[in-house]
């Protein structure tokens, strides 16, 4: 048998225009932050990429005040059609600088450049295009004749889709007339700071967008600041609960997009090969660092053996390694800390008696990598069936009847997403009505569009992002 080795096809890291130092962005200027600078790593090599200035309490105060001034003096007074022009301009600038942003995102986050190039960056641009279109049509959004912006939005985003989550937060906020103070994640601040440059390029009025890098303390300061009218957070359920406590009793509006433990339900009449692709996409896309990841596969018992055999073959073809290589399917885990969490949970799966299968793919010696792993024989009582792993680890459970599938799928405190695989349309509708999840995908998984609202319920949070419904989170209707 002939072996065909794909030659390395790396994107050049020079495209990222990486600078030695980055600084917070307040009132239209890059400023020296008062916080201790942080060093951001390339998780694929463990090398320091850049030093990033962080904010302290007085920077948060200055940013919120700048956002307030911008809100009152310019942004909220601009006609929607004028706001739209800025959003269109930002969207086009993201497209123009797409390659730079993709490579930078990959360096800072560890995700394969294939994904940052084909998913993160284009979808981020799409969010700005989509919301630009709404800016002058808010009276027709079904939220009353003259919905008003809320004021200053304090936004805290995670490290799994740094620029894309920024777009999900900033695009609707600006379209609806709010101004923004945003804190990117500690481990992935770089594309947000290039986005700040894009705001300058677009001549966005100073103070409309402020970016404050830093750790959780900066986020906590921002959320607690009395000048903030609206808090939007995407991240862990644990931090989400802290934020909800912090804003309780204040007039602040809140939306939370938190964790998940989504069930991907495969019936015996499913299109099996595409279900396998959907399962792979559901759990191994972005190394499983996806809040809506299909981390629990619920397979009908009559088809589980065939499905697992196909799944293992398919997973063994996934290419793990240098995230800058255009042929890499699985990149690096974002941080040593996250890698530790994944290992700990995988160990618990072994100890609790689940059967572990790991892809035989080679794993680089340096960097934070974890080979795609599939646990079969998982029971509802095991930790790997209940806790969010946030890594490339799939737990496979089985069911016998549709009722049992629904019961097991819903047997989690989370409720963000779910998938259903069957060729029977009536069963898809029956399942969608019963699955307690904000998003239910039918015969696909992890498909996103700015026009489709996204969000969860129960411990996965509340509020929607995207679509007409998503506007409501930033409007006083």
């Amino acid at each position: 048998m002939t072996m065909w080795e794909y030659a390395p096809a790396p994107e050049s890291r020079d495209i990222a225009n990486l600078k030695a130092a980055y600084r917070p962005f307040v009132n239209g200027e890059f400023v020296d932050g008062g916080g201790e600078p942080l060093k951001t790593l390339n998780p694929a090599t463990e090398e320091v990429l850049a030093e990033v200035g962080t904010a302290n309490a007085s920077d948060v105060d200055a940013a919120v005040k700048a956002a307030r001034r911008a809100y009152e003096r310019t942004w909220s007074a601009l006609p929607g059609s004028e706001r739209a022009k800025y959003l269109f301009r930002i969207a086009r600038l993201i497209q123009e600088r797409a390659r730079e942003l993709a490579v930078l995102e990959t360096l800072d986050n560890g995700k394969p450049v294939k994904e940052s190039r084909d998913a993160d960056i284009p979808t981020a641009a799409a969010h700005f295009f989509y919301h630009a279109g709404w800016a002058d049509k808010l009276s027709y959004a079904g939220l009353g004749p003259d919905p008003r912006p809320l004021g200053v939005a304090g936004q805290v985003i995670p490290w799994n889709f740094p620029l894309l989550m920024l777009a999900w937060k900033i695009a609707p906020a600006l379209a609806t007339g709010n101004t923004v103070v945003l804190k990117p994640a500690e481990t992935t601040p770089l594309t947000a700071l290039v986005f700040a440059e894009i705001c300058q390029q677009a001549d966005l009025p100073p103070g409309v967008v402020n970016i404050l890098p830093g750790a959780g303390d900066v986020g906590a300061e921002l959320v607690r600041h009395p000048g903030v009218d609206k808090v939007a957070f995407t991240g862990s359920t644990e931090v989400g609960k802290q934020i909800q406590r912090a804003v309780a009793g204040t007039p602040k509006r809140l939306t939370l997009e938190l964790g998940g433990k989504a069930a991907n339900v495969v019936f015996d009449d499913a299109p099996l090969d595409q279900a396998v692709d959907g399962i792979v996409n559901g759990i191994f896309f972005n190394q499983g660092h996806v809040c809506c990841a299909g981390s629990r596969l619920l397979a009908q018992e009559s088809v589980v053996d065939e499905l697992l055999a196909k799944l293992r073959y398919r997973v063994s073809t996934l290419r793990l390694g240098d995230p800058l290589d255009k042929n890499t399917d699985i990149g690096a885990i974002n941080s040593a800390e996250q890698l530790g969490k994944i290992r700990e949970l995988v160990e618990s799966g072994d100890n609790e008696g689940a059967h572990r299968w790991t892809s035989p793919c080679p794993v680089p010696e340096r960097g934070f990598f974890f080979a795609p792993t599939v646990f079969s024989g998982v029971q509802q009582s095991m930790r790997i069936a209940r806790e969010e792993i946030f890594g490339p680890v799939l737990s496979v459970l089985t069911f016998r009847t549709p009722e049992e599938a629904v019961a097991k799928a819903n047997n989690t405190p989370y409720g963000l997403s779910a998938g259903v695989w069957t060729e029977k349309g009536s069963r898809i509708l029956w399942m969608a009505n019963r699955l307690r999840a904000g998003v239910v995908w039918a015969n696909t998984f992890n498909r996103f569009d700015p026009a489709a609202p996204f969000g969860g319920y129960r411990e996965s949070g509340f509020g929607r992002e995207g679509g007409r419904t998503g506007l409501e989170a930033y409007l006083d209707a």
Partner: protein
Amino acid sequence: MATPTLPAALADATRDESSLRRFLHGLPGVDQVGVEQRAAGLATRSIKKAAKLWAIDTAISMVDLTTLEGADTHGKVRALAAKARRPDPDRPDTPPVAAVCVYPDLAATAVDALGGSGIGVASVATAFPSGRSSRAVKLADVELAVTSGATEVDMVIDRGAFLEGRYGQVFEEIREIKAACGDAHLKVILETGELATYDNVRRAAWLALLAGGDFVKTSTGKVSPAATLPVTHVLLQAVRDWYTATGELRGVKPAGGIRTTKDAVRYLVAVHEVAGPEWLTPALFRFGASSLLNDLLLQRRTQLDGHYSGPDYVTQD
């Protein structure tokens, strides 16, 4: 009508018309959105340097160099045979193609021109391309090809019968043709452009495999759309599933519309990752093409010389 070597479940599928129907309709469906998304995703693989040169040489060795025109002459077939032996006369290390594919009345000419080269002669048959004739005429067509010395027969299935749901008839016909082929390899053209749905393509592929086809082939090249990546994915999946079920390796041949090296490399990536590396051989994967070969030769020169040569540096045959 069962083949004795098949596993029980598959042998049972071919017992009678209704078993066959139950089996084919019991195959998992193919989700159109999903298979097209997967095909587009795999098509973004970036194949460079040594991997690309390997792919080009492999693709050349998999070409069924084809001429299927009403205007075909003995001279045209001889020209094609010469090209098949030495695709790039300036570069004798260029591998020969897998086979030359012609109409049955010209098979003898191709056999004569390719004598001793080890290059196969494939002949289309069974009232190609429509397949609309009697069984006797189709068998006579095959007999002409085989007695002329063709080593491979590319038959078309009766799409009308397939679309009417008369699977047994299609099955029987393939079996009879296979028997008539003797030692010649049988490629079964499904004409996927006329079957229209991926579900139909999968059923037709299994039907052909059950009936003994050595290859499943997408198209005649006379109907649009001809070969597409997603359709080829479905066929590659079918031969992989067949291998899992029986341990037998069967081949796939996309034909029609594959004109560039870039396209060919995308097909090879699909072969590599959907079916598996075992299929990366002319024994199990072919390209039915005419203009593809020259683009492969030009790209091969580009890889070796470091610059592009114009189309006049390869022979127009």
